[in-house]
C-alpha cells in the first residue's frame, strides 16, 4: 500500500531539488529576507519537535505527536495569516503555534500533563488544541460566521487531517461554510495516514475534489513546499476575507514519524514509502534554493543551527522546570460562575488533603 507520490494537479512553486517553478494561478514574490525567515521557522520548528520527542523518550512528556515532515505545510499556512485571522488547530500544529507566537513550552505542558493547553487563545488568535477528531472545523465555521456578522476583515483557518475528513462534523462544517459563505479556509494536511489507516480507507477520490460537491473550490498544494503553501493559503484567506467564501486546501505531505510516540508504524507501513518522501524534505529544498541563488551563505546556516541548538536546550531546561499544578487546581475554571457542587467538593478535598500534611 504505497501512497501515490506524484499526484496530479499539485500546486508547486519550489521543487524538491530547490528549483523555482511557475504556476499560472499562484505565484509569490518573496524577498531574500522573507525566504531566510521561512527557512529559520522551518528549522526551529523541527528542532522544537525533535526536542519534544526526546523529552518524551526520557519520560518527561506523557506523549508527543510529531510534526516531522509537515513543517512546510504548517509554516507556509501559518505565515499566510494576518494577526486578525483565527487559527483552529488539531493536536499536531506545533508549527502553526510557532507562527502565532505561542511559546512551545505551552505545547510541552499539555503533553506533559500539567494542563490541557496553557496559552491564551485570544491573545494569539490560536485556538486550543482539539484532540477529538474534526470537532474544531465547526468551531472555525461558527467563528467565521461571527467575523462575517462583525463586518471584520479576517478569516478563520482550520486544520485537520486526512482521516478527519470522514467525520460527520467535518462534512457538516463544509455544508455550513458553503451555505453561509463563511470566511473560512479548510486546511487539510493529508499526511497519507490516520494512525495505521492509509488514505484509501477514507476516500476514493483526491480529498481536494470533495470541495466541489459542497459548492466551493478545492486546491491541492505540495505540502512540503513552503512557498506554495504560503501562496495558496494566502490567496484562499484573502478570498475569504473579501467575501468570496470558503476554500479547501489539501496540503499533500507525509507523516515522517510515528502517529504519536505511542505508535509503532513498522506494524503497518513499508520503509520504501518513507525513503521516497525523504527526498522531498521540506527544509532541504529551501536550503538548496537559498544556496543556489546565493541568498544565504554558510555563516547564515550555521547561525540558524546554533539558534536551534539554543532553542532546544532552553526548551528542555524550562520543560524540566515545569512544576506540577497544585492538586486543588482541578476544581478551578470548571465554571465561570460560582458553583455549589464544585465548591463543596473542593472544600472536602482540601480537608482530606490536609489530613496528610506533616504525615511524612
Amino acid at each position: 500500500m504505497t501512497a501515490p507520490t506524484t499526484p496530479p494537479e499539485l500546486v508547486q512553486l519550489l521543487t524538491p531539488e530547490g528549483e523555482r517553478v511557475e504556476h499560472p494561478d499562484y505565484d509569490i514574490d518573496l524577498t531574500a529576507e522573507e525566504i531566510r525567515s521561512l527557512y529559520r521557522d522551518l528549522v526551529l520548528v523541527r528542532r522544537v519537535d525533535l526536542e519534544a520527542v526526546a523529552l518524551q523518550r526520557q519520560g518527561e512528556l506523557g506523549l508527543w505527536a510529531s510534526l516531522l515532515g509537515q513543517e512546510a505545510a504548517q509554516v507556509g499556512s501559518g505565515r499566510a495569516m494576518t494577526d486578525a485571522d483565527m487559527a483552529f488547530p488539531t493536536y499536531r500544529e506545533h508549527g502553526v503555534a510557532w507562527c502565532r507566537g505561542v511559546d512551545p513550552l505551552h505545547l510541552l505542558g499539555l503533553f506533559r500533563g500539567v494542563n490541557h493547553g496553557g496559552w491564551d487563545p485570544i491573545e494569539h488568535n490560536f485556538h486550543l488544541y482539539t484532540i477529538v477528531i474534526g470537532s474544531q472545523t465547526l468551531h472555525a465555521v461558527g467563528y467565521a460566521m461571527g467575523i462575517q456578522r462583525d463586518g471584520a476583515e479576517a478569516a478563520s483557518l482550520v486544520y485537520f487531517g486526512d482521516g478527519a475528513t470522514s467525520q460527520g462534523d467535518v462534512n457538516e462544517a463544509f455544508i455550513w461554510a458553503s451555505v453561509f459563505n463563511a470566511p473560512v479556509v479548510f486546511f487539510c494536511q493529508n499526511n497519507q495516514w490516520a494512525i495505521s489507516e492509509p488514505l484509501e480507507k477514507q476516500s476514493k477520490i483526491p480529498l481536494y475534489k470533495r470541495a466541489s460537491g459542497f459548492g466551493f473550490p478545492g486546491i491541492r498544494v505540495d505540502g512540503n513546499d513552503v512557498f506554495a503553501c504560503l501562496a495558496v493559503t494566502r490567496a484562499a484567506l484573502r478570498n475569504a476575507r473579501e467575501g468570496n467564501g470558503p476554500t479547501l486546501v489539501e496540503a499533500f505531505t507525509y507523516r515522517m514519524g510515528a502517529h504519536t510516540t505511542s505508535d509503532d508504524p513498522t506494524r503497518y507501513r513499508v520503509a520504501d514509502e518513507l525513503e521516497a518522501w525523504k527526498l522531498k524534505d521540506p527544509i532541504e529544498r529551501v536550503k538548496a534554493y537559498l544556496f543556489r541563488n546565493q541568498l544565504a551563505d554558510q555563516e547564515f546556516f550555521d547561525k540558524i543551527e546554533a539558534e536551534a541548538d539554543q532553542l532546544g536546550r532552553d526548551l528542555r531546561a524550562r520543560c524540566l522546570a515545569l512544576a506540577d499544578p497544585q492538586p486543588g487546581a482541578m476544581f478551578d475554571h470548571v465554571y465561570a460562575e460560582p458553583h455549589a457542587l464544585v465548591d463543596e467538593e473542593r472544600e472536602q478535598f482540601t480537608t482530606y488533603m490536609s489530613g496528610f500534611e506533616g504525615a511524612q
Partner: protein
Amino acid sequence: MTTLTLAKALNEGLRAAMDADSKVLVMGEDVGKLGGVFRVTDGLQKDFGEDRVIDTPLAESGIIGTAIGLALRGYRPVCEIQFDGFVFPAADQIITQLAKMPLRSLGKLKLPVVVRIPCGGGIGAVEHHSESPETYFTHTAGLRVVACSNPVDAYTMIQDAVRCDDPVVFFEPKRRYWDKADVEFGAPGLPLDRARVAREGDDVTLVAYGPMVKTCLEAAAAAEEDGRSVGVIDLRSLNPLDMPVVRDAVNRTGRCVVVHEAPVFNGLGGEIAARVTEQCFYRLEAPVLRVGGFSTPYPPSRLEDHYLPDLDRILEAVDRVFGY
C-alpha cells in the same frame, strides 16, 4: 490454563467468538492491520480476513450506524471505540437507534451489536483518553452495560456479549489491559448479568467494577492488617444490576462503600446506594458511602492520581463508615 493479559484474554475471547459464528464481525479504527491501539484485535484480520475484521473510516457515528445495518442483515458486529472520550460522536446512533429499535419493532428486530470501549484513567494520557462514560449508557434503556475487571472474566464476558441478542456496551479497564491471570480456554464464566464476589468479608462491603475492583481488593488486603474484614463485589454488569449478590453481602456486613472512577455526582454509586438502602435498610449500620471522581472534567495527567480513587481514599471511606 494459559497466562494471559486482559488485552490478550479479550483477543482470545474474540477469536473464539469468531470461530464459533461466521456472522461475527470486528470493526473500528485501526483494528485490522494494527490490531487496535491496545492490540486487543491483534492478528484477527490476518486470520479472519478483511471482510470480517474491518478497518473503518474515521467516524464513530458511521461505525455504530453501519453496525446496526449489518445487524439488521444478520451479522453480529463487535465495534471498537478507540478511547472512551471518542464515543460521543456515536452517541446518537447508540441512544436513539441501537437502544430503541428492538422495542420499536415490537421485538421483531434484534440488534446483537457489541460496543467495546476502553475506559478509565491511570495511564498518564492526554485529554479524552481517561474517561468513565458508563453512566450515560446505563441511563439508556435498551442497552446492556457491562465492565470486565480481570482476564478470566474478560475472556468469557466478551464471548457472552457477542452471543447476547441485545446491544451490549462493553467497558474494558485500560489500565488493567496488561494485568495477567491464568485463563482456561473453553471454560464458561458467570452469566453476563451476574455480579461476582471477588472477596468475602464480614465488616464492610466494597462494591466496584472495571478498574476499581483491583484497587478495592488491595484496599481490602490493607484493611485486613488493621483487623477489618472487607468484602469486595465485582458488579460486572452495570445494567442490569445483580442486586441479590450485593444485598446478600451487605446484609452480612451492614456497611457498604461504592467505588468508581466516574464522578460521584449522579454516578452509578447513587443508584446502588439507593437500592441498598431500600433493600437492606434494617441491616445497615451506616449510610452507604461513595468514593469516585469529582465534579470536574478529568484533570491533566499530572493530577490524575488525586482525581482517581486510591487505597487511601477507599480506606478513609471505610473508616468513616465505621464512624456511625
